[in-house]
C-alpha cells in the first residue's frame, strides 16, 4: 500500500473529476471553474505541502512517477546497447548512446516496470551482476571516446537473488565503482526515484549528483533497515525518519549537489515538464564540466567523495595517553 496513492483517492479524486467535467462543459473561463481550481490547489498543498520522509519514500515509489525510461525517451536520440558480452542482457539496467540537448552521451538507467509483466522483465528495477557489467563496459566505452556519462538511478537495491550471488554481485558492483573512479569524462547522476544502497551508488559515483525533490537515496531501504536493527520491517516509517534520505538532508550533507523541485503532489502530476526540467539541469551541469580536462575531472571526483566523513578528531597524543 502506497500512502501517497491512498491520499490521492477520496476528496482529491472527486475534485479532479468535478473540474474535468466542468472543463468539458464550459469553453471559456468561468468563476465556478476558477473556484474549484483554487480549492484544488489548496487541497493539494494541504495533502502534499509538507511531506514526511516516509511519505517521500512513497512518492519515490509512486507507480505513476516518471521512470528512468521516461527520461531516456525524452532524449533527442537513443540507441540502446545490450549485454555484458558474457552471459546476459539485463533489462533492469538500460544503457546506450544518446544525444542530450544535442550533445553525444552514454546513458545508463535503472528501469522499473509499470505492470507485472514489465516488472518481471525488468526485475523490478533490481540490477543483476550482468547489468552492472554492461554498465561498466559502457562507462569504459564513454571514457574511450570522450562521451559524458549520464545516469538515472531508480532501484530499491541490487538484485539479492541466488543467481546474482553466484555470479558475484559484489564484484560486479565494485567493478562499476572502479570504472567510474577511472573515467576521464564528466559523470552526472540523477536520482529520479529510489536510490537504494550500493545498487544505486554503483552508477552514481559522479561529478554531480542531482536528485528529484521527492526522490530518496538511502544506505538501506527503510524496511531493510528496520528489519536489521529492530527485527520489524513494519517500522519502516520510523527508519525513513532516522536515515536522512531526502534530497534536503543529502544536500545538507554535501552528498547531493542539487535538487529539482517537483510539482506539488509529485513529479507525475506534470511528468513531461518535470522530465524536461531534469534534462535541462543535467545539460547545465554538463556545460560546467565539459571544459575540464580528464585529470581535473578525476581529481575533483576523488576529492568530492574523499572528504565525505563525520568524525571527532582526537589528537594522537591524547589517545595514546588514554589507551595505555
Amino acid at each position, binding site marked *: 500500500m502506497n500512502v501517497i496513492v491512498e491520499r490521492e483517492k477520496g476528496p482529491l479524486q472527486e475534485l479532479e473529476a468535478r473540474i474535468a467535467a466542468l472543463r468539458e462543459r464550459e469553453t471559456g473561463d468561468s468563476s465556478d471553474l476558477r473556484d474549484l481550481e483554487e480549492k484544488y490547489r489548496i487541497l493539494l498543498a494541504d495533502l502534499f505541502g509538507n511531506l514526511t520522509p516516509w511519505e517521500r519514500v512513497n512518492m519515490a515509489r509512486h507507480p505513476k512517477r516518471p521512470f528512468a525510461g521516461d527520461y531516456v525517451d525524452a532524449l533527442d536520440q537513443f540507441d540502446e546497447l545490450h549485454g555484458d558480452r558474457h552471459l546476459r542482457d539485463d533489462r533492469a539496467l538500460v544503457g546506450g548512446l544518446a544525444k542530450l540537448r544535442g550533445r553525444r552521451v552514454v546513458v545508463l538507467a535503472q528501469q522499473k516496470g509499470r505492470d507485472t509483466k514489465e516488472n518481471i522483465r525488468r526485475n523490478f528495477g533490481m540490477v543483476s551482476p550482468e547489468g552492472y557489467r554492461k554498465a561498466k563496459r559502457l562507462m569504459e566505452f564513454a571514457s574511450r571516446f570522450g562521451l559524458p556519462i549520464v545516469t538515472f538511478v531508480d532501484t530499491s537495491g541490487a538484485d539479492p537473488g541466488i543467481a546474482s550471488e553466484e555470479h558475484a554481485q559484489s564484484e560486479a558492483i565494485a567493478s562499476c565503482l572502479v570504472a567510474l573512479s577511472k573515467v576521464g569524462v564528466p559523470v552526472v547522476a540523477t536520482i529520479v526515484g529510489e536510490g537504494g544502497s550500493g545498487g544505486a551508488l554503483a552508477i552514481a559515483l559522479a561529478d554531480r549528483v542531482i536528485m528529484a525533490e521527492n526522490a530518496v537515496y538511502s544506505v538501506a531501504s527503510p524496511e531493510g533497515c528496520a528489519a536489521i536493527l529492530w527485527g520489524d520491517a513494519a517500522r519502516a516509517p520510523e527508519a525513513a525518519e532516522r536515515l536522512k534520505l531526502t534530497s534536503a538532508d543529502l544536500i545538507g550533507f554535501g552528498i547531493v549537489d542539487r535538487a529539482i523541485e517537483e510539482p506539488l503532489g509529485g513529479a507525475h502530476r506534470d511528468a513531461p515538464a518535470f522530465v524536461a526540467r531534469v534534462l535541462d539541469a543535467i545539460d547545465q551541469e554538463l556545460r560546467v564540466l565539459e571544459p575540464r580536462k580528464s585529470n581535473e575531472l578525476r581529481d575533483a571526483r*576523488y576529492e568530492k567523495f574523499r572528504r565525505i566523513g563525520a568524525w571527532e578528531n582526537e589528537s594522537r597524543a591524547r589517545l595514546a595517553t588514554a589507551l595505555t
Partner: protein
Amino acid sequence: MAIPDWLRRLRDRDVSAEDAALWTKCPSCGEMLYRKDLEANLSVCTKCNHHFRMSAYDRINTLVDGDFVEIGMEFLPGDPLGWVDKRSYPEKLEADRLKSNLTEAVVTGFATLDGFPVALGVMDFSFRGGTMGTVVGERITNLLEEARKRKLPCIVFTASGGARMEEGMLALMQMAKTTQAVERFMSDGNLFVTVLTDPTTGGVSASFAFQSDLIVGEARASIGFAGRRVIEQTLRQKLPDNFQTAEFLLEKGHIDMVVTRAELRATLVRLLDYAVDRKRVAPALKAVPEFAL
C-alpha cells in the same frame, strides 16, 4: 582538553572478569576448549577445525614479525545523524568499545611480514558487526593513501556486516571513497591483497573486498553481497549449507584461493614474494617515524 568519558572508562575497566571465562564451547562441534589452547591454535578448534572469529589485534599478532605501528587512530566516530533508537548511537559505540577494546571496526597500520614491509588493515566484527561507517572508510582510505606514498603493498582483512545504518548515507559514501583510494593505489602498480574472513558482506564486499589483485578467502568464511537471511526471506526458500562459503565462492570462481588460518601467514608471504620486490620496498618503512625495522 579533558579525556572523554568513554576513553577513561575503557582505560579503567576491570578486565579480570573477562579472563574468568577460561573455557569456550566450540559452536561447530560442541567441544569444550581451554581458552589458552584455543588461542595458541590461532582460535581454530583443535577438534573440528572450526575457525572462530578473531579480534583485530589477535589477528595482527599472528601475522606481523614484531612491531605494528598503528595509524588512523585519530579518526573516531561522531554522530552525524543524531541517531537514537533503543539507545543512542554514541551509547552503542561506547558499549562496543568496552566489549571489543577497539575504537572502531578496523585497525590500520604498518608492519613487516617475514621482512616484507606492508600496510595492513584488519576489520573486527565485534565492533558494530564490522560495519563500515565514516571512520572505517576514512581509516581504510588513509591506509591506502599512506601506502601509496610509500609504494608499499597493502593487505586488508575484511569482516563486515555491510554499511553502518546509524551513519546513513555518509556510511554508504565510504564505498565510493575507499574504492577510489584502492583504484589510485592499484593504478600506481602497487599490490593490493584482501583476505575475506567471516563474515564479509554488503558495502565492504561490494567495494574494496572484491577489488583487489588477489582475493584470499579464509576457510569456511561466509562471503556474499546480500545477507543469507535477506535472500531466504525474499525467496521464501532455504539455501544450501555451503551457499556463500569461501569454498563455494572458490568453485564459482569469485576468489583466488581458500586458505586455513594455519596456512595464512605463509601463504601471504609467498604471494608478496611473487609480486613485490623485497629490496625495493624495504626502505619504505623508514619513513614511518615510529617504526623500528
